[in-house]
């Protein structure tokens, strides 16, 4: 009896997959047996990941299931939009789960992570430089690196490196954050808070140069929340807020890209054939779905531009309804809640900041893109974690989740009882 009850969330995910892939199978003639195979593969992968967590006693049992559910919805939707994309996404999903387990185990096995303080921003800088000099532009922004057949979006990695840096940095100056001197310039003592701000705004600067407004916004939100929680100095919190508001306002008035996005957000109907096209198509899709959706395969999400990546939430709303969309939002909310619950229970400063930071990355990223495509906030392109098509996004999300999973298992050595 108890075993059955504990299995229930897993069974729900399996059910969603069976229904989703089953519907896809019957919708398209001639019947495509690969669809069933893909469904089985997805179910197998989720079962595999879940079993490993359970049998190796790797901590929180829900994190992986939530991610698995989100990924399942993504794969089903992508399969429905384009068979090849769906298939590729399953391959990435498999890779993601492997890397999830590997990162989870590596993180627990080695204890050097908190000592690599300045290595993280250096790595970010390196990635940034590589993108700048060898990067390829896809859709206007130069933010991809091509290696062989693969294209990687370094900003996906940089945001996690940033969280690592902040966590290690807080650990380094734990208990002496306001008094310690990092170094001196003449008579001027440079405090940790200055270094933290400098490095953070440097990261923001990277993103702005690469025109990744969404990631910039997200990194700022994560940084600001971490600052609020872990730095006691309220004056500097206000300085941060003022600096960011000034930067944001300057952006709105001076940077044409941002100005257009804000104008489009305020009134997309003015230039419906031009700048407003994407967002209005997204709104049509959401409106067409109604509360219950048109049904899988019965809507026209293919009318939305970039539907596989940034706008996949609108496709979900069209075919699975507002209720489907709300379900996705609630899944992110539970993920955030579980992550924060883990962060609350930890005493060690490094892992605490890390768990909290990673959770914030997931939560804010989901908010920034979902809020954008429903026109709650100005649209800025970031991927929807675990759902959007894309290797970098999916794999990095799973690696980050693996670390959160590792942290949830408690201090290594003790947790495995």
């Amino acid at each position, binding site marked *: 009896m108890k075993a059955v009850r504990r299995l229930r969330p897993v069974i729900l995910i399996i059910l969603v997959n069976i229904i989703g892939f089953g519907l896809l199978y019957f919708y398209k003639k001639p019947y495509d047996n690969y669809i069933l195979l893909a469904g089985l593969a997805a179910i197998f992968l989720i079962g595999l990941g879940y079993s490993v967590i359970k049998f190796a006693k790797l901590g929180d049992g829900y994190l992986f299931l939530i991610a698995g559910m989100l990924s399942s919805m993504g794969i089903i939707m992508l399969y429905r939009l384009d068979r090849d994309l769906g298939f590729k996404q399953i391959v990435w999903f498999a890779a993601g789960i492997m890397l999830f387990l590997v990162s989870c185990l590596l993180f627990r096995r080695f204890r050097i992570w908190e000592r690599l303080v300045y290595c993280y921003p250096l790595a970010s800088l390196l990635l940034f430089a590589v993108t700048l000099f060898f990067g390829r532009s896809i859709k206007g922004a130069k933010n991809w690196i091509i290696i062989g057949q693969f294209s990687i979006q370094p900003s996906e990695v940089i945001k996690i490196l940033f969280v690592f840096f902040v966590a290690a940095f807080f650990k380094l100056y734990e208990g002496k954050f306001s008094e310690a001197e990092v170094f001196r310039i003449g008579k001027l003592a440079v405090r940790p808070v200055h270094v933290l701000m400098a490095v953070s705004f440097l990261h923001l600067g990277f993103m702005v140069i690469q025109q990744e407004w969404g990631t910039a916004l997200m990194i700022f939100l994560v940084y600001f929340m971490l600052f609020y929680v872990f730095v006691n100095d309220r004056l500097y919190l206000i300085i941060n807020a003022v600096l960011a508001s000034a930067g944001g306002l300057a952006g709105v008035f001076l940077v044409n890209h941002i100005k257009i996005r804000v104008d489009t957000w305020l009134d997309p109907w003015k230039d419906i054939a031009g700048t407003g096209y994407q967002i209005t198509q997204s*709104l*049509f899709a*959401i409106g067409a779905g109604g*509360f219950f959706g048109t*049904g899988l395969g019965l*809507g026209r999400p293919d009318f939305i531009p970039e539907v596989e990546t940034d706008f996949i939430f609108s496709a979900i709303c069209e075919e699975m309804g507002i209720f489907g*969309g709300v379900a996705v939002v609630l899944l992110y909310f539970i993920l955030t809640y579980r992550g924060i619950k883990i962060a609350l229970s930890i005493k060690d400063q490094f892992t605490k900041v890390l768990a909290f930071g990673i959770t914030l990355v997931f939560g804010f990223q989901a908010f920034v893109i979902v809020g954008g495509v429903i026109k*709650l906030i100005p649209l800025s392109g970031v991927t929807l974690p675990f759902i959007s098509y894309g290797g970098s996004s999916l794999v990095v999300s799973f690696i980050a989740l693996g670390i959160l999973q590792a942290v949830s298992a408690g201090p290594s050595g003790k947790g495995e009882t």
Partner: protein
Amino acid sequence: MEKQNRRIIHVLIFMSFLFLSIIVYLTYFEIFEKDSILTSSYNRRQWEKEDTTQRGSILDRNGTVLAYSKGTGSKQERVYPYGRLYSQVIGYNSRAYGKSQLEAKYNNELLNIWEFSPVTGLSNLLKGEQKTGNDLYLTLDHKLQKKAEELLGNKNGAIVVMRPKTGEVLAMVSKPDFDPSSAKLAQNWQEMVESADHPFLPRATQGLYAPGSTFKVLISAAALENGVGAGIYDDNGSIVINGMEISNYGKEAFGKIDMTGALAVSSNVVFSQIGVALGEKNIRDIAARAGMNRDIPFDINASSSRFPYKTMGKTDLAAVGIGQGRLQVTPLFMAMLASGIANDGVIMKPYMVERVVSPNDTVIRTAQPEVFSRLTSPEIAAQVNKMMQSVVETGTGKSAAIKGVKVAGKSGTAENELSGIQKNKEHAWFISFAPADDPKVAVAVVLEYGGSTGGKAAAPIAREIMRLSLSEG
């Protein structure tokens, strides 16, 4: 640590708020916003359905076809056999310019789109048959509509004809109008959008005019309710209230008259005094019962009539007493007001789509008469009815009289933004109903910037419409 955890909780609360705002916004969007955006011509979905469904027809109460689709699939063409006649009611259905009026509001019915249509449509899909939409049967009477259009001629304005006891709209004409066929729209679009005549403004439902003396009907009802205006007034042709001079049309002096006489001759001197005597509360009260400042639920968008005063001074009360000041009403509203007096003080909710009928002749939906508002008691309504009859018998509404039928009416000649600076720019109004002892038809006529009085210009139009309507039974 304690402090950090407390702040982490703050962040959790903040994030909960963010996620909640998404859910609230989505729900809000779904309930309030989506209907107005889905009909945009940039939404390719609506044509998607159009391509696989034969769009339903629109017919009048006797089965005359007013709009139908020719051809099949993506080659369908919307045909309006009567051209401009129904352009301000049925609207248009064009791939390039979207949909308007009934074509927009009843799009789902015309294309038979509803929550479970994927399930019911499955058999058609398997048989490979083209789906067929539903037909709309309107309460409009084609003969009456045509007559109303002819009577309006090339003057700008509107005519609304209703059945007072049910709220059925029998005819609704707005001028200027336009040719709603897709080809003509494409040809004339730019010119019409920029035209100072605003041909896309459906005057009958969205045109806002000062009601002028027709508003005295409402003031009379309020006066009777509150025992005001019972005595005899001495009318010298003009009066000064708080420094503002109010005079009768042409400064005519009517001498000693009571309220019934004052309504018949449309005395501004008397009714401005009654307005002041009634006071703010009573006037505000009856305006609210008439449905001013309130949305009128109707089959096409209708503007609400405006009673915009925050507070009212004596001059405001005097101006409202004669239907001037900042009051603004739609022709539909005035037809409803006339209907309310005719129907023992009860205003019925107006409607125009009588029933929705599926291709296999099943009636999917039938409109039921509903009460919109209770204007006044049956006794007061009967008294106002009598007063309105004397307007037609002896007063300014004589040209609305029909031999052998008791007609009740009220004229209005409304000052407006142009009449102040130019001569002969007043709006001419007439509202009426007949037969007065058992009302079957109510009419509101407005002629924009006509420069003639309501009694001379608008009343004969109302008479012809009532006569035709009554002869049809």
